[in-house]
């Protein structure tokens, strides 16, 4: 699958400036360089955890499908939206092999 700039082979890692903290079932990300905050719901937080370490989006998507019993189309759409948002704010970086 492809979606705009992303393909199932795209891989990301968490930016080293970002720290995150689990808070009452959600996750708050802090960009410690810019001093900005982002809140992720449970599914977003699961994707965030899966994304790290240069894992391909295909595998992240599969992880979400397995965990939340959604179709892979739904998981992919949500994942792309999330990654776009995270990348736009510099919270993830494209991982080069």
């Amino acid at each position, binding site marked *: 699958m492809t979606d705009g700039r992303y393909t199932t082979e795209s891989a990301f890692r968490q930016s080293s400036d970002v720290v995150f*903290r689990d808070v*009452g079932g*959600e996750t*708050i990300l*802090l960009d*410690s360089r810019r*001093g900005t905050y982002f809140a992720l719901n449970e599914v977003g937080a699961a994707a965030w955890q899966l994304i790290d370490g240069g894992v391909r989006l295909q595998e992240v998507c599969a992880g979400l499908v397995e965990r939340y019993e959604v179709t892979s189309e739904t998981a992919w759409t949500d994942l792309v939206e999330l990654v776009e948002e995270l990348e736009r704010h510099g919270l993830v970086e494209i991982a080069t092999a």
Partner: protein
Amino acid sequence: MGSFAVAPDGATIRYRSSLDASPAVVEEALSGPVLVFALALRGFFSLHASAVALRDAGDRLIAFVGPSGAGKSTLAAVLAARGPWVRVSDDVLPAGLTEEPSPVALTEFPQPKLAATARPAASLPESLPLAAVCVLRPPTGEVRLAPMPVPEAALTLIRHTLGTRLFGPDLLRRHLDSCADLAVAVPVVRLSYPWTSEGARCVSDALRERFGAPS
């Protein structure tokens, strides 16, 4: 004005004077951003909040946060005008979990906005347990106290912390942890009430019932 240097543990503040330093400006900086920063290094993050102490079986503090014009100072003053509340803060309330698991807030932050006569009695201890943080909402026909979900509570505490633009990455991390822990340990509630004297009495009753010492 000169320059301030705060030790990494926040225990000492050194001031290097300059020729044009005005004592009033230096004092304002010292009792404002410099002190807020030093306290943050000591684990006390300063909420932009007014606060009252409930003096009954067990003294405790209730903080009020909200945008300008939400009535933070007014509510603290109105509550203090009738017992058993004592006005503790008009603007700045350093709070932290330095004595886990009970969150506390400091009662003695210099408050330029409070006239000397309105300052809390010296009988208050240096710190008191923080029983609740109320986020003030626009007035309603009756008193409403609605608990906030923990993640939203944590973001609210983050948003209402003073001086964060002075924090480096490490202090921002500690601030996030502190707000996340506080949001779990302290109820953060939305408070709305009628802006009438009857409304203030109902707020007093509601806060005592919800957060006062068990009778």
